[in-house]
């Protein structure tokens, strides 16, 4: 499954994302804390025109901060009994189509060497993304899996595209096979999972090759152009990977949909792995007996003025 960019290469695509999450509790919760990473950040290819978070019931506390990776985080707290919590993120972004690299793409060997020896701002850029992380640990299976791409002369875009295809072909998308706590080793063994899992596989493979790689969370457009299949993961938040190309910058690839670079993805945040930036994370205090979660994501082309 792959999709060609439907917009003209020169014009940005305008997309509106509405991500609605509702928790229903079987008995009233007296205190609830929620950390939200749902509002998109600007990137070189993405301009954020508007982004707002609507919360019901109205939170007693709400504060915003930018985390160390530059992501927007919002902390909410409701300190009175409530039976449900509804969080709606509503954003409009303009996304530029992928453009040719400004510099010369390095080969894998060059990229690894330049990354390893980076100093100054480049060092700060790659430092967090070089080593295995909690959800993307170093595994012998990952080393073996990524081995076909360990060609020192391969240009970096081909490495990213190669990883994307490799994972796409080897893994089966199965939302019932894993959940957010499934370890990478199990994903590797079963060769199945969802976009978060594939993004962790991609990030781990890239790091195993010696590259700096980060985990990206965001969305993809729901409405596929006529005649093309709807993209997987369209009705939920999505995740993909990005690798550092010294001299050029970060370049994304989406192993779930085998797109490198992904044409119209809405970027929300990035970090070392999902542990750093789950879209919504909450803690309840009170006699919690049960909870029900509903998530609805709508990504639609937005009219331009």
């Amino acid at each position: 499954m792959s999709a060609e960019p439907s917009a003209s290469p020169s014009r940005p695509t305008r997309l509106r994302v509405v991500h609605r999450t509702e928790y229903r509790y079987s008995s009233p919760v007296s205190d609830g804390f929620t950390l939200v990473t749902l509002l998109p950040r600007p990137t070189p290819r993405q301009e954020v025109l508007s982004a707002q978070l609507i919360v019901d019931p109205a939170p007693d506390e709400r504060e915003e901060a930018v985390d160390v990776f530059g992501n927007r985080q919002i902390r909410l707290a409701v300190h009175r009994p409530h039976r449900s919590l509804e969080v709606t993120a509503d954003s409009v972004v303009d996304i530029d189509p992928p453009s040719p690299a400004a510099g010369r793409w390095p080969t894998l060997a060059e990229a690894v060497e330049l990354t390893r020896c980076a100093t100054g701002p480049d060092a700060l850029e790659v430092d967090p993304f070089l080593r295995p992380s909690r959800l993307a640990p170093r595994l012998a299976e990952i080393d073996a899996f990524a081995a076909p791409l360990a060609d020192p002369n391969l240009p970096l875009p081909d490495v990213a595209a190669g990883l994307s295809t490799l994972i796409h072909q080897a893994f089966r998308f199965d939302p019932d096979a894993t959940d957010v706590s499934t370890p990478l080793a199990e994903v590797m063994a079963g060769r199945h999972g969802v976009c978060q899992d594939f993004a962790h596989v991609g990030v781990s493979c890239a790091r195993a090759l010696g590259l700096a790689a980060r985990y990206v969370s965001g969305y993809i457009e729901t409405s596929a152009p006529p005649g093309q299949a709807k993209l997987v993961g369209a009705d939920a938040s999505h995740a993909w990977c990005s690798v550092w190309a010294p001299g050029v910058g970060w370049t994304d690839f989406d192993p779930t949909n085998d797109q490198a670079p992904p044409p119209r993805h809405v970027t929300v945040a990035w970090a070392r792995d999902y542990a750093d930036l789950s879209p919504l994370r909450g803690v309840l205090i009170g006699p919690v007996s049960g909870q029900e979660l509903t998530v609805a994501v709508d990504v639609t082309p937005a009219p331009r003025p």
Partner: protein
Amino acid sequence: MSAALTGYQPAGAGFDEAIDAAGRPRPHWREVLTALAAAGRPGLAEAFVHAARLRDAEGAGHLVVDRDQRDRHEDAWRLDPTPFVLDHAEFGALARGVAQLVAVLERLAADVHGPRELVAAGVIPLGAVGASPRFRPAAAGAAGTGPRRWIVHAAIDVVRTEGGAWRLVRYEVEAPGGLGYALLNRGVTARVQGLLLPRTGPAPVHDHLAALRHALASAAPSGVASPRTVLLSGGPAQPGYVEHSYLAGRLGYHLVESGDVVSRDGRLWLRALDGFEPLDVVYRHIGDGGVDPLEAGEPGEAGARPGVPGLVWTQRRGGVSLANAYGVGVLEDPAVRASLPQVCSFLRGEALALAPLEPGPIGVGLANAPVFDGEGLAPRPVTLRLFAAADDAGVRVLQGGSGFVLAAGDDPAQPTARLVKDVWVVGGPSRKATVGSSAAGPPQVDFSRSVSRRAAEALFHLGRSAERAELSSRAARVVGDQLARDAGVVSLGGGGWARGVHGLLRAARGAPLDWRDALPLEANLRHELDDAVAAVAGFVAELVAEASHVREFLSTTTGRVLGRLADERDALAHGGAGVDHLDLLLVELAALAGLANESTVRGPAWRFADLGRRLQRALGVLGGVEATLGLAVEPVALQPLAEALLAANESLVAYRRRHRSDVEVHAALDLLVHDDTNPRALAFQLDLIREHGAALGWAHGAALADEAARAANAVVGERAAGGRRLDVDALVLACRAPLLALVDAVNARWFADPVNPVAVRGR
């Protein structure tokens, strides 16, 4: 004065702490070696055993909760009665090294969570910090958003090489442990060595608590003049809990568990009896991953999560200070540790005084010190743990520490620590001078009125369990005595006595009356006596468990009594000890009650423990009266039955002195129900419950006690039916209802506060 007198022989040519290369005792060891020689092996062996006993006594109550652990690892941790002696001047150099290290770590923490100049300049290898699993993104932020201090206290492990140089093997900054144990050890060795070792003695260690208190206070958010500090612990399930409660007690801080505090409106609050009380500094003994379930932990973990949700954001906003600050754990990452020498040169333009130990074969190339292992003095390598407290004025190092004797094959950075030495610094200036130099910290806000709801609840249950244990023990003891004196008592009054005492035993432990007609009288009763002993073991276990949650409210002596109670419980539960054993237990329970009354300040903590005891005693008296005097038995059975009731409630002697006659129902009722001069009577309990209600400003509680008192004044006539005295039953029922309502009301008013953090997440 020769080393040979001690039988100590250095091993080979490497550095020996006590003996120089020429075979002469080093000057700072002379006094100790002389004393050891005088004590001889028998003296040392005795001191070794004595130290173990004292350490148990000193820590008993603390160690109670570690009992299972102790049982699993017999002698998991023994104290070597011979100290590790350091010359004052040499210790000074070591302390300067520690101070430099802590200063470097402080700047390192600030840099890696802020501008990251060390990363950009390549001083720290790429990926060492940012990509470390111990790096907490939420700890990092723009300049000026970091905590006031990253490191307030630290533990530093060093070893001496065979060449004589000190080397760094490890440091702890995330949740440094061992300070409490080091102080506890000094308390024990000071007493052992009073018998054994020289009069000059080492530099004192306990004034380090003042330095630590000062450092914690000065870490408070800016503008707080008189900060409130609490010690955050993982609770009795955490291995270090013994030391946490010891330190909290010594420092005068509340020991809190995650559920005792709440983050709200940019501040941190203690859930106290009368609402939230603000906190300023959290002396945390929980790692980065456990302080805030909103930040850390593994994704996908559903269910209960430890930690205080929002604590990290509250620290980021400057509403509270964590000591040490959230995120410092990354400094313990091996890759960061390895880069310290370069970091030190870069930041300070000087070499790291405590150079890291060069990697090599484990246990080779280290200096030795004399170690007494129970048999004799032998040369063994030792890892020294030193403790530092830091504030903006500088770093203070405890003048002493702990020495972990390395077993064969031990990694100096991970000693198995079966044998621990006290560390002595000798030859320094006189004590007065050093004590006077420690700056006085601002006073803590008086916490005596603030008790966390959890602690109040634990104290309430502690009081109830103690009373249950006491009443059940005494009832079983009395019934057992009567049976032993005359087995014929069983059939008195057609089994009336047997039924009555059977009910007495059951009422004492709060079990419903349940007479099994199918069983023979005596079998029924013997069965019940066994159950009573088992119930006592259960009550004592509950009491010890509740006490371990509020250990810092209880005195050292109380701790010792708790330790003995735990031993008695073990004997009851496992040793097949019978009714006779209950006498020993009753003595310990009396000691506990005496300490509660004579050694406890009348604050809210005491009131809740006493309220629990009084409520339980009131219910116990009523239950006993119902089971015995409520039965319409023949006079021949009534006599021993009423005596059993009076004796179980410690009132038989009073009855005899007052009436000098056979027991009569109304007189017994009078003494046990109405007599407000009898500390075992219902009326006496109700007076105290009313007083507690008034002191706590709790009118509802006092009103319920009044209601019970009015019901107790009902006239008791002679009506009987179905083998029961109806008026006694009516009195018991009418009194009991408001008391049961009172138990519910205590829970609802003071304790019920669901604290049960559960993680939720969405994809």
